């Protein structure tokens, strides 16, 4: 067999011509997996009709490509406990034994965690309530809620490792031979032509992938989705301004741990009242444990990693983890604006699916299954359009995809959740109250959204706990040592230092290496660029440094941020934590498409 004929490409050189496909998907997350799985199944289902033919390459079956930024399809991050309604409808006979780290949800508990150190920022009412609860709480400073609100429960669902689930579904898509999923291939931009989206541009060498339909599933911080929002604008009243960093560890549980496979804890109250936590037990004595640090935690030094360490060392969690070992670690940004963050779901030549399409439900704390559903609904619409020989125009996609979405349970639940988190703008109490109101009244009651508050200065945030002089001295010392502020400030405010054990309590850098196995391709330019260095130099609120999930952004000369791509986990938190704007709505952090990042397949 000669290479020239089979591979269609001479070994003597490469050919940078545009590549024609029918459908190009950007990003391989749960939404794209749902899309490709469904489309593949529909294309392969026995039918008396003529088989669908490629419109891009006549005579061939449809050419369906998916480009994923990360170096492997299994390098995603999520703390997945899901009711899996959409996933189960795609795989009615899903056998968890086929997917490593997956289990059926067994027992489910909601724990309120008291603060054993007295260091968290609890309002007066909460401190008073804590005194009452303390009498009812267990010795491990936790109080188990007698019941879990129905909108939170995940009974009959699954615990997954997102990485392993993606690997499993990706392998099935690939072995169908119907679609190709290419990891390590970031997409830099949509390809615009005559006001339509005509495909995408690959970041590596600018190759154009021309396709009649571009399926944008690159998540909330993906460059293609963000570019579409810039060009087409958001629907009236829609905005993406509520976020969280989700950070997790996968832990080998110690022999002493007696928790059974399928155990789920949801936690509230600690390490800060605004931070929700989770603890899920996978098969074979492995657990996922993590937190969400939301944008409404208005600390100017919010940090994911330090809070994660305090979370896992809370007595109610540590009693299960002590002696365990970190297997994996990872972080990602979550778009928590819900339906209000929904962009234009389609246009001529493109459709949006998944988290970047505003599908995450902030009331139920659920996103993977919702993302899968958006992909499935789009696939059903696309298949219909193909069968009927109709083009992928805005009108046709509205009729076949968006309409499906509007009549689905996703939409119904999204509307209920729409105002669920607004209360947190007014404080913790009203935050929880708002969630309860939305949940129990099916969205009929809820707080309206307030206008955005500017980030508070450090001195104001720590008023009453640290003097302005203390803050100033800490700031100067950290600047001198090029260290972030959060460790020093938190310890000054009463948080105990973390004593590393080399197993589970390790330095942030060791978490990158031991857990995330973070890597960057050596020969690429920095993918995080500070657009206007003068703005960074003048900025006094360097939240980008504090929040950075990998310590990839650190203080350089005069404390201004410096980026080290070898440590970047591509969580994208720097985008939404940057407090400076170069233009209205455009932050000073440019986050470009790049491969690399986490190399763990367990998150």
């Amino acid at each position, binding site marked *: 067999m000669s290479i020239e004929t089979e591979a269609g490409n001479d070994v003597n050189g490469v050919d940078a011509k545009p590549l024609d496909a029918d459908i190009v998907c950007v990003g391989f997350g749960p939404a794209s997996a749902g899309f490709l799985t469904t489309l593949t199944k529909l294309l392969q289902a026995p039918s008396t009709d003529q088989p669908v033919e490629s419109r891009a390459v006549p005579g061939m079956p449809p050419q369906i490509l998916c480009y994923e930024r990360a170096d492997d399809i299994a390098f995603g991050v999520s703390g997945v406990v899901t009711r899996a309604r959409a996933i189960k409808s795609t795989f009615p006979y899903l056998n968890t034994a086929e997917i490593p780290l997956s289990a059926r949800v067994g027992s489910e508990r909601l724990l309120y965690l008291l603060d054993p150190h007295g260091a968290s920022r609890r309002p007066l009412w909460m401190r008073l309530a804590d005194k009452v609860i303390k009498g009812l709480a267990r010795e491990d400073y936790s109080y188990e809620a007698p019941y879990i609100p129905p909108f939170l429960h995940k009974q009959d669902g699954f615990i997954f490792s997102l990485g392993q689930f993606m690997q499993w579904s990706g392998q099935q898509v690939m072995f169908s031979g119907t679609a190709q999923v290419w990891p390590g291939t970031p997409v830099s931009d949509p390809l615009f032509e005559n006001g339509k989206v005509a495909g995408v541009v690959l970041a590596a060498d600018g190759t154009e992938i021309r396709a009649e339909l571009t399926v944008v599933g690159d998540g909330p911080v993906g460059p293609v989705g963000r570019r579409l929002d810039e060009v087409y604008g958001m629907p009236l009243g829609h905005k993406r301004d509520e976020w969280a960093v989700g950070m997790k560890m996968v832990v080998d549980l110690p022999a002493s741990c007696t928790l059974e496979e399928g155990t789920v804890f949801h936690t509230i109250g600690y390490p800060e009242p605004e931070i929700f936590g989770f603890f899920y037990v996978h098969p074979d004595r492995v657990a996922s444990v993590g937190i969400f640090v939301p944008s409404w935690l208005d600390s100017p030094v919010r940090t994911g990693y330090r809070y994660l360490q305090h979370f896992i060392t809370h007595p109610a969690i540590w009693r299960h983890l002590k002696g365990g070992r970190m297997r994996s670690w990872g972080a990602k940004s979550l778009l928590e604006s819900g339906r209000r963050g929904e962009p234009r779901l389609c246009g001529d030549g493109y459709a949006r699916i998944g988290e970047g399409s505003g599908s995450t439900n902030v009331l139920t704390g659920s996103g993977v299954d919702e993302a899968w559903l958006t992909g499935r609904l789009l696939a059903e619409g696309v298949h219909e359009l193909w069968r009927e020989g109709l083009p992928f125009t805005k009108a046709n996609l509205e009729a076949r995809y968006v309409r499906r979405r509007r009549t689905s349970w996703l939409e119904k639940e999204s509307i209920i959740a729409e105002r669920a988190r607004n209360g947190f703008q007014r404080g913790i109490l009203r935050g929880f109250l708002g969630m309860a109101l939305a949940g129990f009244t099916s969205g009929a009651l809820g707080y309206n959204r307030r206008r955005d508050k500017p980030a508070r200065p450090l001195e104001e945030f720590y008023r009453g706990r640290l003097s302005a002089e203390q803050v100033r001295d800490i700031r100067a010392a950290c600047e001198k040592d090029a260290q972030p502020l959060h460790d020093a400030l938190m310890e000054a405010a009463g948080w105990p230092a973390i004593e*590393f054990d080399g197993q589970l309590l390790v330095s942030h850098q060791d978490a990158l*290496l031991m857990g995330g196995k973070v890597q960057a391709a*050596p020969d690429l330019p920095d993918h995080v660029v500070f657009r206007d260095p003068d703005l960074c130099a003048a900025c006094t609120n360097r939240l980008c440094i504090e929040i950075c999930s990998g310590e990839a952004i650190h203080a350089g*000369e005069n404390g201004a941020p410096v980026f080290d791509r070898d440590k970047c986990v591509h969580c994208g938190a720097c985008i939404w934590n940057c407090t400076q704007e170069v233009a209205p709505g455009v932050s000073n952090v440019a986050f470009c498409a790049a491969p690399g990042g986490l190399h763990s397949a367990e998150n």
Partner: protein
Amino acid sequence: MDQRLMQGKHMEKILVLLHTEADGSLGRAARECLSLAASLGKYDLAISGADASAAANSAEGSAERILCIAADEFAVPRSSTDSAAAEMLIRTSGATLVLAPGTSRWSRALPMAAARLGGVIDTHAVGLEVVGDSIQVKRWFYRQRIEGTVARSGSPWIVVIEPGAFTATEATPRQATIETQSLELAVSPRTTVEGTISTAAGEQTIRPDAALLFVAGAGWTKKQKDGQVHFADAADRIQTFVHKSKCSLGSSKSLVDLSSEGEAVLPFLTHLHQVGQTGSTPRHRKGLATCCHGEEPHVVGWRFINERRAVNLDPNCGWARGKADVLYVADAFEVMKELNALLD
């Protein structure tokens, strides 16, 4: 272990298979192999290469039988001639267990001989022991990250011994009057050996004879406190130290990757410097790591370094937990500058 091999069910017939060095002598690895064989009891000896029979006379004296192939064609390291010689020597000896040193020459030729003999082979053996009634060879898997033992029932079983894994005894001239049996083997090689050259990196390549291994990590190329990179300073510090201390220079994979892909980073580093991973696992007495974070695969390359120190800015890095003897939490740029000055 001693005589148990001979008492066990296996009753192995052992052959020590050696080759001569360019000067006709037996190398250190060959002598290590001989001392291992001597500890096992009786064995036959086979030598290939120039002056093979002279070398046989210098070998330790407990061999029961000596076979040689010594024609000129067998003087140079070459797969076709070496594997043919090994095949014939093993076949003639009737050995069931063949011990051979893991030189580059035998590493190339012995698997070929094993395949032609219908035999089996294990390489990089760092131990050989009798467990129950079977022999087990100890070796590493996954680039020195997992150690294991291998047992086999095939024969002949060629075990290639990792240099440095056993102690070489000084050769005592052979007293016995065992006749050396010279074998004739006709070969017509298609390969000519043109000689050896030093690598372009010259003295900076990992040299096994140096007392100290100095490993430069990727931290040398990172932005420093001032937000800038200082490639020239890094190169100067490293090269000056290597030159003045006569140490052997190693590097981490990430730094080597940076240096070899056309970037003006530290161009004097090549893949020959790489320690761990796909690089080497050197056996120097002392090792000094600078700007290396202590990630597991990197540490793998240090497994056989006896005394280890590290200079690194992160007090919580992997080196601090049981991998180095001393971790200096300091800026390697400053420390190496001072150290170079002291070496003047």
